[in-house]
């Protein structure tokens, strides 16, 4: 399964900032609410999370130690 940013539609105010900044067209507005389009090209740049004024998008990281 492709890992994509997490969204909370109930927090989305439909501003569309994330759609505009996503370099991989992984986000669209449907009915003025953010929706993630599953794509292999999402490179976890986290810009969508950075621009979201309502924290409706999150790009969480798993932190691991190499070899453990």
């Amino acid at each position: 399964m492709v890992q994509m940013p997490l969204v909370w539609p109930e927090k989305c105010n439909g501003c569309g900032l994330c759609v505009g900044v996503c370099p991989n067209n992984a986000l669209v507005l449907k009915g003025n609410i953010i929706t993630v389009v599953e794509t292999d090209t999402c490179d976890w740049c986290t810009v969508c999370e950075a621009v979201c004024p309502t924290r409706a998008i999150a790009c969480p990281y798993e932190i691991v130690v190499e070899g453990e």
Partner: protein
Amino acid sequence: MGDEMEFLRTNPYFSGIALPELDSISKLMFKRTAGRGETILLEDEPAEALFFVASGVVKVFKTSADGKEQILYLLRPGESLNDAPAFDGGPNPASAQALGPVVLYGIKRGDLEVILREHPKVALNVTRVLSQRVRHLMSLVEDLSFKHVMGRLAKILLEQSGDKTGNRPWLTQQDMAAMAGTAREMIGRSLKALEDDGAIRLEGRRIVITDKKALEELAR
């Protein structure tokens, strides 16, 4: 043995308590679940219960008037939340949110008093738990006062990578900023700098620590 009993048996709050006593304590517990992002407790609201994390990870945080967040703890299974108001009767000192699916066990304030009266050993255990909490908060004050952002981030990465139980939290850059007491932009820049220095490698949604010693040096 039921889930509650197994949980109590291994919980520091109830260390050294005999099984029949644990059984009576387990009858006073209630279960609560929360989904990812769900608010469990709100700062300044009346405190109704002491909670224990049974599974998942819970973020405990304070929010400033302008909406800035400071994470105080990331609680993993076995750890408790809302200890202070459960004992002093004040409001929730911080908010709590589920970082993923979470199962909690709760004990209502009134029931907690009954447990402490009937099982004095629990009171001794509580002082140990609260003492560790004080140590953690003093360490946080020290980090925020004296350490540079890079050092704080190095410490966060080391601490949050260490749990091999599968309850390792997934943290956003915003979460790390709230833990380090800085802006999200600083975390982005610091992660990049650590990658340039060869201490970590960013692999999509994984931060791989490639030079643990270098991070430990920065975190000192």
